[in-house]
């Protein structure tokens, strides 16, 4: 039997080495999936939960809502009645309720905290909408004309982005970043320690073939991660992809290169396999937090968002979200892909400069 090509043989050897390494498989696939199940399953109806509103005394606006508006109001708010304003505010402060509402003359006063930012935003937006609606209704009633403008209340967030939609692209980005960076760091260090790098240097194969095989396997692992995430998300948690989701494939390919480069850098500056993996972890985990892999960054301070814009994972996550669930067109991924590619190039050059054949 003739042998497979050097490229095929190397790719197979690397792939087998990965699949047989339980720790790597756990961190590349199982661990991120645990987060997907956690976010997608347990917290799935968090954003459908109602805003708990304590109505203090009579509030004409709420009491006098027409039937259809009342229905809409009840969809957003869970109303409880009270006569004690101070007690109501205390409850809001403790977090037992989200907002206390009272009427002072013609003014509607809402007491809420900023602790739960999403609910605070919903409260503000929804109450404003109801006040505007009431004003319009009153004006049109006074003039005897039907209202020119009608108002429909809508949730302040992007309607399609239920939890699973939001978390899948970000967690996937984190999973890919993690396995690409760890894989590159551990391979470089491991092969250096065992002198396999030297041994390959003495075999009649080009560096391009060796690197090509390593990249191919890592990209294949990333695409498998994509398939598993989409498959599980769709089957178990109702993930629905939008038109250009397939752009996530080239995005992940470029992203993989970028995080492999980070892993190479970690492998180049460390002297042991553990050191390399720890260094990769030290980079990837904070980056995942700051790139919105675990929670949205919209409500974070500006300086934090500025930092996150310097991180490649942020661009991958955003672009993945755009094409996978926000319904953006394929071209929306081009700029992020350019950023990721530039990042990959620069980091690879730095890693190549710091690279040593030996650890001592």
């Amino acid at each position, binding site marked *: 039997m003739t042998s497979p090509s050097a490229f095929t*043989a190397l790719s197979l050897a690397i792939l087998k080495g990965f699949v047989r390494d339980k720790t790597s498989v756990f961190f590349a696939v199982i661990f991120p999936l645990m987060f997907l199940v956690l976010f997608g399953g347990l917290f799935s109806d968090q954003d459908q939960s109602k805003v708990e509103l304590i109505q203090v005394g009579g509030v004409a606006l709420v009491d006098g809502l027409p039937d259809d508006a009342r229905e809409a109001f009840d969809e957003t708010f869970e109303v409880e009645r009270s006569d004690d304003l101070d007690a109501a505010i205390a409850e809001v402060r403790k977090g037992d309720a989200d907002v206390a509402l009272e009427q002072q003359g013609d003014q509607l006063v809402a007491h809420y905290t900023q602790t739960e930012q999403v609910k605070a935003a919903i409260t503000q937006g929804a109450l404003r909408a109801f006040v505007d609606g009431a004003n319009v209704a009153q004006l049109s009633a006074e003039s005897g004309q039907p209202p020119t403008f009608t108002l429909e209340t809508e949730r302040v967030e992007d309607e399609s982005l239920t939890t699973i939609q939001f978390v899948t692209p970000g967690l996937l980005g984190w999973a890919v970043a993690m396995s690409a960076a760890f894989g590159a760091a551990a391979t470089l260090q491991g092969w250096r320690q*065992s002198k396999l790098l030297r041994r390959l*240097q*003495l*075999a009649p*194969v080009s560096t391009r073939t060796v690197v090509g095989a390593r990249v191919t396997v890592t990209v294949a692992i990333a695409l498998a991660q994509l398939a598993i995430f989409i498959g599980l998300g769709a089957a178990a948690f109702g993930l629905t992809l939008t038109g250009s989701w397939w752009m996530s494939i080239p995005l992940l390919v470029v992203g993989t290169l970028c995080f492999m480069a980070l892993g190479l850098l970690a492998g180049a500056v460390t002297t042991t396999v553990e050191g390399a993996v720890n260094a990769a972890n030290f980079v990837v985990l904070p980056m995942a937090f700051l790139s919105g892999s675990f929670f949205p960054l919209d409500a974070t301070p500006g300086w934090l968002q500025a930092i996150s814009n310097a991180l490649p994972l942020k661009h991958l996550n955003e672009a993945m979200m755009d094409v996978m669930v926000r319904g953006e067109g394929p071209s929306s991924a081009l700029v992020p892909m350019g950023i990721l590619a530039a990042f990959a190039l620069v980091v690879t050059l730095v890693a190549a400069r710091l690279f040593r*054949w030996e650890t001592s």
Partner: protein
Amino acid sequence: MTRAIEVENLTMTYGTLRAVDDVSLSVEQGEFVGILGPNGAGKTTTLETIEGLRRPDRGSVTVLGQPVWPRNAGLLPRIGVQLQASSFFERLTAREQMHTFAALYGVRTSVADDWLERVGLVDKADTRVEDLSGGQTQRLSIASALVHDPELVFLDEPTAALDPQARRNLWDLLSGLNDSGRTVVLTTHYMDEAEVLCDRVAIMDSGRILQFDSPSALIRRLDAPARITVAPGQLQLDEARRIDGVDEAAEGSDGVVLVTRQPTVVVSRLAETDQLDGVRVQTGTLEDVFLDLTGREYRA
């Protein structure tokens, strides 16, 4: 015929340390050569420079008539290398390692299987390298260095860290390596190993090659006296001192010990008087050669 290896005035430094100091060495094709020296002598650095892994700081290295630096792709299929570490792919079985290396050299898979058999690893073919014993790992390592049937083979301490039994088992394999005219260069820090396996031995210490010759010539040149031990009760001490050629005689725990530079004369005299029973003759060893060259004990 071109020489297998030609090293001229090679010097290699790590920072201020001269790991290899003005070494010259030539190896003919078909020779089995050993580089013998204690740890830190510079054996690995010398070997890796000859293989083309390191750029010579000074001097030149030619292998099979061609320069090895910069990386000479034409030479790679002609040389086989076992590095001083088990350079294998993680978590692959012995057979998978061999098949992968075969593919890297464009060799048929069946050749890789033949090598597994030749090094006695057929029943370990499906065992992962991490689970092989030290001796089995070394066998696999040697097999993967030879899978493409190279003309010139480098083995860096193939028997290091093996127990004496496994070491001797490996000698059988090693001694057959150059039967087909292949050139073998091996490093070792075991004297007995160099003596048994090698046609010529380069004795190396502190980056320098002190002597390079066949083990017997090295010992002969040492001109060390032989020690002849005669079993107790066979020979009186004063009688022993009167024998022609005996320089010194002393009573030892296992008999009378005669020190002589003419062992043949002394032994034939003992034969004439029928005093040969239980006689033991010890000539110089490579260890004595090392002691003579460096003025200190050999510590591997």
